[in-house]
């Protein structure tokens, strides 16, 4: 059996869960800065409070899967992405503590909300930078990173940062459309009508420019033309459905369409990168850990992941329906 490939699938699953779940979390956080009414902000945060921690755990899962199954790639990529990763972690940290602090310190709530919003935006942008840096390719010599830690601050990764932020804002807007009540209706509709076109525009620009940044991308398009066209088509159709279902029932439809849209984007990226784990540089098999390590990881993953998914779903189920306007303690 091809164990590194299975481990890579598990890593891909983790990163997909992370982007979809923490994506809407971060999007809601970013939108806090645009909402002037404290009561509405409370409502927005209440909609994500009970489940954010689990969403963020998929990020750790991704990182640690990389460490366990592809230690060579982990050791190349993290030094290469040193600055965006550290800034992202600090931003996520500030954002994480604001969840608790804002509810406990009513007097400073405005300031904590500001930190929360900025933390969310910075974390989203850093993830975009990371994506951009991966696509443009990191310098590798042997099994070590050999470039400069500032390589990721070129125009292309910066464009990716805007794109990812816009994508997360779309997901966040969809989540609010789904989970919050009349209080935020108008705000949500306006957000989605602006953010979605921005996302599609930046995404298209990124896709076009990527050809000139990374020659490997053109080659993959030639090889998998039909597959990649199908994926792009799916994204576009999902985006159209999303746009058409704003401010209509059922409330969940924009979110479902948004999830399909972003998931299709991730599938597209996976096709571009495969079979490498350090994109366009080191393959899955060259970076992989020994057989027994893969077996241990995969056995654990196969047994435990279904249980994790079951009670994560249960946690969402407990807090199903519209988020109460008075909050969870009310």
């Amino acid at each position, binding site marked *: 059996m091809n164990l590194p490939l299975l481990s890579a699938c598990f890593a891909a699953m983790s990163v997909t869960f992370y982007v979809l779940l923490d994506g809407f979390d971060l999007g809601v956080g970013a939108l806090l800065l645009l909402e002037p009414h404290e009561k509405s902000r409370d409502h927005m945060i209440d909609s994500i*409070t*009970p489940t954010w*921690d*689990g969403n*963020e*755990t998929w*990020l*750790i*899962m991704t*990182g*640690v899967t990389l*460490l*366990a199954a592809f*230690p*060579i790639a*982990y*050791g190349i*990529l*993290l*030094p290469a992405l*040193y600055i965006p*990763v550290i*800034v992202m*972690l*600090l931003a*996520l*940290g*500030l954002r*994480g*503590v604001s*969840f*608790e*602090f804002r509810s*406990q*310190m009513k007097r400073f709530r405005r300031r904590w909300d500001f930190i929360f919003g900025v933390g969310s935006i910075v974390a989203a942008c850093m993830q975009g930078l990371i994506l951009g840096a991966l696509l443009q390719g990191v310098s590798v010599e042997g099994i*070590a*990173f050999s470039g400069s830690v500032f390589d990721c601050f070129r125009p292309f990764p910066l464009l990716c940062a805007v794109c990812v932020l816009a994508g997360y804002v779309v997901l966040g807007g969809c989540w609010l459309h789904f989970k919050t*009540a*009349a209080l935020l209706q108008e705000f949500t509709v306006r957000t989605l009508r602006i953010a979605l076109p921005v996302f599609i525009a930046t995404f298209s620009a990124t896709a076009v420019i990527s050809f000139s940044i990374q020659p490997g991308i053109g080659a993959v398009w030639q090889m998998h033309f039909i597959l990649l066209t199908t994926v792009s088509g799916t994204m576009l159709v999902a985006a159209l459905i999303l746009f058409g279902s704003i401010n209509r029932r059922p409330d969940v439809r924009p979110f479902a369409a948004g999830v399909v849209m972003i998931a299709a984007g991730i599938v597209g990226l996976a096709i571009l990168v495969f079979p490498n784990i350090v994109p366009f540089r080191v393959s899955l098999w060259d970076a992989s*850990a*020994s057989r*027994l*390590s893969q077996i*241990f*990881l995969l056995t*654990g*993953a196969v047994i*435990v992941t279904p249980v*994790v998914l079951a*009670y994560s779903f249960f*946690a969402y189920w*407990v*807090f199903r*329906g*519209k*988020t*109460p306007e*008075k909050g*969870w*303690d009310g």
Partner: protein
Amino acid sequence: MNLNPATLTRVQFAFTVSFHIIFPTMSIGLAMFLAVIEGLWLKTRDGLYLEIYRFWLNIFAMGFGVGVVTGIVLSFEFGLGFAKFAQLAGPAIGPMIALEVLTSFFLEAGFLGIMLFGMHRVGPKLHFFATCMVALGTLLSASWILSANSWMQTPDGVAVRNGRLIVVNWWHVLNNPTWLVRLPHMLSAAYLTASFLVAGVGARYLLEGKHLAFAKKSVALGTAFAAVLIAGQVFIGDILYGTMLKHQPSKMQAAEGFWGKESPSPAPYYWVIVPDQKEQRNRFALGIPYLGSIWLTHSLHGRVEGLKNTPPDRQPIMGMVFYGFRIMYGVAILMFSVATASLWLRWKRKLFTSRWFLRCLVVMTPSGIVATLGGWYLAETGRQPWVIFGLLRTTDAVSPVPAGTLLATLIAFICIYAFVMAAFLIFVARIIRRGPESAPAQAEASGSLKNAFRPQVLDRASADAALGR
């Protein structure tokens, strides 16, 4: 201190990991305490337990949050700072940490939401189940991480081929020579930490004459747990001392502060030393005569090994190891004394009225955290100069990141962590000052609470939402 990348990377890791461990220590302890308290409440239906539960739940939630976000940093820092360590050790510690995430982090995250915000949505039994799952999650997490760290202390079950590490026997990797002694040591450290936190806050209220019922219960529970745990901890600590002496003699040689091949006979027990690593001697040493021989060799004239038994290029820095150990051990002696006094006062029925004792408890509130930090400094600085003992030197493991970037991120970490710590302390101080009675949703605790627990409340919430549209 010279600003070379290796030093900066190590300082950054030391800072972030020291900051982090404070919070899991509290969370592991408080999660178990909360599970016990909610269990007692379900059994007795005494509202006092619920009051205690709600009070500590807020502090637990806050500390847990800080622990999670500072923990995420660590899982990436292996690669950010120590790329070669990650590439070599990844096949062994990676799967362990991955299993930690799967079995513990998701468990905690999944049930924490219900524990914190689900009171109105699930019944009391299911809520208790959620609390237990969170406590179990913290326990599993400690177990995996201690296994991974113990493997770095006493690596086993692996072979190195072509520069890459290969796991030969997973059982030997997991159940390496020190894991099963270090795990109970850390767990009871965490439970002791929670016990002294609870007792300390109760003692403060007793001294102020406030919240008396709550305070008495806290002092009674906290000191009772502490007395049982410290007795066990002394025992476990003694076993661990022997285990480490066998597997990492250099650590224990440094920990006692002696340089020579053999200590003088009778050996004193040093409390203050000014070591000179270059000259391989102490410039100054102050200790209690005979006590070293008695404690360490269980005889009046026994000798102890000194650090010169280890070649200089394999020695840890004595000062850090020695003081890490002395801080932990000193605090443990204080804990033991306080716990013994509590038993005596309980027997005399003066536990709640001896003001000197209550003042001691207040001072001892953070003692568990201090002792745990000291213990981890002993463990981690004593392993140096190795990151994986005997296999990989720390200086050979660092990532290719320039010193300027490292310095900038170190400063960023210090500023942001200081800010978070300040906010956390202000927050805890406010909760303690406010006291249990005005804790959120306290009004419901007076008998009507069972109604609030019923899931029908859910229907009211969705009705509200439906009307809102």
